[in-house]
């Protein structure tokens, strides 16, 4: 059982900044995210795109914002459960919550902060018969451990950056990599496209376009796929099939947590962004209230206010006062201390 003060569901910018604000109040955080890496949409959908409305940053790439937020929260040693989706929540007699993921990982916390954005990112699955039967038996929608594919035959489908990047990466790991895409053109970074072209010429990637995977074969585990190209079918032997058709967000199981929901968002009280269930907060794009704007900067504000109430829940009756980091410095949980340099008081002779 993972125990923490604030369990944050969603490791996007709002969730990551919560770690920092909670840390200032000496509260420990743990984050759960369905994606394999922190950053939420910023790292998954548009890492290379600039954002112009983060206060103090005239322009910052979404990927760099994620990197900075991780750096800013590092000293407060957040824990991460990545690649797992928060599925169920149970309130305990002692007032804590236990949140269990789809992989069975249990987390216990006094406060739960849902910073889930538009929901957990679920892979967009191709419409193939038997697809579910082969999930985790040869079919995967996300690559968590590339070593699984060492010396195996792998078929990747998709035409975006992840399909290109993983084909390039696995070309040196797998015994055979086949990349299948519906069009001849790929949408991805130019150098990735070039690299795939190069690897194709070296026979390290078997490129099949314009084509689609139209059937899966095997008994208990995947043994092959049918690829259809311009009306002609061909069966290819493979150990793994990885369709990478992007992700779409779904509010998912959180919708069944007994929280008041309005238009796919969780209703909160703007005093502290608490939901109708005391101890469960919703911050960032996942919440709604009169006047709500889905902006990263609003998520930061909501996270900050929420932490004040979380402190009171975790430390009932304990006095606390707002401190300025410039005055008080920051004491990290890792033993580091940051503070403004002391002014020198010295007479000039």
């Amino acid at each position, binding site marked *: 059982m993972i125990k923490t003060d604030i369990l944050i569901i969603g490791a996007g910018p709002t969730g990551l900044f919560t770690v920092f604000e909670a840390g200032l109040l000496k509260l420990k955080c743990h984050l759960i995210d369905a994606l394999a890496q922190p950053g939420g*949409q910023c790292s998954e*959908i*548009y890492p290379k*795109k600039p954002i112009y409305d983060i206060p103090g940053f005239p322009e910052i790439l979404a990927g760099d914002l994620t990197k900075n937020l991780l750096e800013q929260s590092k000293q407060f040693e957040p824990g991460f459960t990545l690649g797992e989706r928060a599925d169920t929540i149970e309130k305990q007699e002692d007032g804590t919550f236990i949140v269990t993921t789809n992989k069975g990982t249990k987390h216990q916390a006094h406060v739960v902060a849902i910073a889930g954005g*538009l929901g957990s990112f679920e892979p*967009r699955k191709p*419409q193939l018969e038997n697809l579910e039967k082969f999930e985790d038996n040869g079919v995967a929608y996300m690559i968590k451990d590339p070593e699984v594919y060492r010396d195996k035959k792998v078929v990747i489908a*998709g*035409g*975006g950056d992840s399909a290109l990047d993983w084909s390039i990466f696995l070309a040196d790991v797998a015994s055979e990599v086949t990349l299948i895409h*519906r*069009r001849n*053109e*790929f*949408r991805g970074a130019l150098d990735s496209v070039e690299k795939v072209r190069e690897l194709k010429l070296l026979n390290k990637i078997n490129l099949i376009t314009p084509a689609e995977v139209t059937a899966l074969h095997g008994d208990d585990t995947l043994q092959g796929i049918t690829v259809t190209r311009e009306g002609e079918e061909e069966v290819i032997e493979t150990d793994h099939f990885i369709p990478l*058709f*992007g992700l*779409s*967000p779904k509010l998912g199981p959180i919708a069944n947590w007994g929280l008041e929901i309005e*238009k796919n968002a969780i209703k909160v009280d703007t005093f502290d962004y608490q939901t109708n269930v005391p101890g469960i907060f919703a911050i960032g794009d996942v919440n709604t209230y009169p006047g709500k704007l889905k902006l990263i900067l609003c998520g930061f504000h909501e996270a900050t206010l929420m932490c004040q109430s979380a402190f009171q829940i975790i430390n009932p009756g304990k006095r606390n006062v707002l401190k300025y980091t410039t005055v008080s410095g920051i004491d990290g949980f890792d033993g580091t201390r940051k503070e403004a340099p002391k002014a020198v008081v010295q007479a000039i002779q």
Partner: protein
Amino acid sequence: MEHNINIKVTDREGVMHQLIAPTDMAMNLMEVFKAYELPVEGTCGGMAMCASCQCYIESDHQLNEMQDEEEAMLSEAFYVKSNSRLGCQIPITSNLNELEVTLAPEY
């Protein structure tokens, strides 16, 4: 009004909506859907990176040409037809008056 056009949108339940869209607010079709609270997520915010605003163009208006990003996204999306476009890539301009579109199924 001078800066408004009419757009007919058929939603996923087959219900038709008459929308009035301003041409002077630098809006795109996805944003107009959202402004009228039609069930369009616009997940990526309008970067042609999610296809949640895919719609079918039912009238024979001359639309702006499809750029590479939109074409690539549509090549990966589901339920794509020959008249598919991403709403976020269609700027609201006066020549689109009486445009008729249908929302593509959600995926």
